[in-house]
């Protein structure tokens, strides 16, 4: 997934993050990564918890 992609957050995180988001960053250099950052959201996400819209 690239920066700028619109996504939805999958379960079990949908309740906390119910909106549509845009990927604002990605970190490949992290143990267990990569992780994705969403605009306006402080938490990072694994790819398996993101669904491309």
């Amino acid at each position, binding site marked *: 997934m690239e920066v700028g992609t619109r996504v939805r957050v999958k379960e*079990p*995180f949908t*309740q*906390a*993050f119910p909106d549509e988001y845009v990927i604002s960053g990605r*970190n490949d250099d*992290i*143990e*267990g*990564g990569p*992780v*994705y950052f969403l605009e306006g959201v*402080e*938490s*990072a*996400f*694994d790819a*398996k*918890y993101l669904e491309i819209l």
Partner: protein
Amino acid sequence: MAITTLDGIVAGLGNAAQGLIINKASLSTQLAGGFTSLWRATGTPAQGAVPSTGAICTKALTGAMGFNNPSSGLSSYLARMMMLSSNNITDVQIHDRLAHMGGLSGTSTTAQTAAIDVSGSTNNLDLRRGDANYSDVQWWLEWYTATGSTAVTATITYTNADGVGSRTTTVSLASSMAASRMLPIVGSGGEFIRAISSITLSATTGTTGSFGVTATRALCGMSCPLANSSNISDWALLGFPRVHDDACLMMVMIPGSTTSGTLYGTSKLIQG
């Protein structure tokens, strides 16, 4: 029996008090206004062990403040406490550590088993947990080794007070959660929790670290507003909290700075 008169309190303080000594070294990398567990602080009581699988805690655990259960039919109470912190603006609470588990990873993004339940009666838990609706039980994520610098969200899967399972709530994990930090777990919509089954992180934090789930019941607390000045609370200020047999007494601190400071204190536990 129970202590129900001032005479009973005076008699307990004068004749049957057990002294509890607190002398804890400072912990670094804490958060002013956050929650710090003194379970792993060295000193007196001794440093508690890092838990593994879920277990009910008792006063027999290293890390707990030791006391003797009273004779049959008598009850125990905290009736006096003195605290002195090397830091300003420190709040110290005494909790009964009901249950704990550890070994959760900061890099796993699959559901990690917690399997911690306070609904049983082993080790006097049915009395120690308080109200039957679990409103006295406080749930925490507790850190034993720092996790990584990436902020993530944890989804907690739990059973509510009515016994309904597969309920979920979330906790935000800030970057670089340090050892001994605690984050409260609150049930969805404020409902009370009786068991936690699993924890799922939204992403790796970048470092495995080690953290776990802890259940406590707060008994009393006191403030130490001025560094190196002793502060005393009597039975009335403490709320004369009952200490049930086998309680695992520990301290939870709300520090006013990024260290917990050295903490010295004494307390009197009376029985009658």
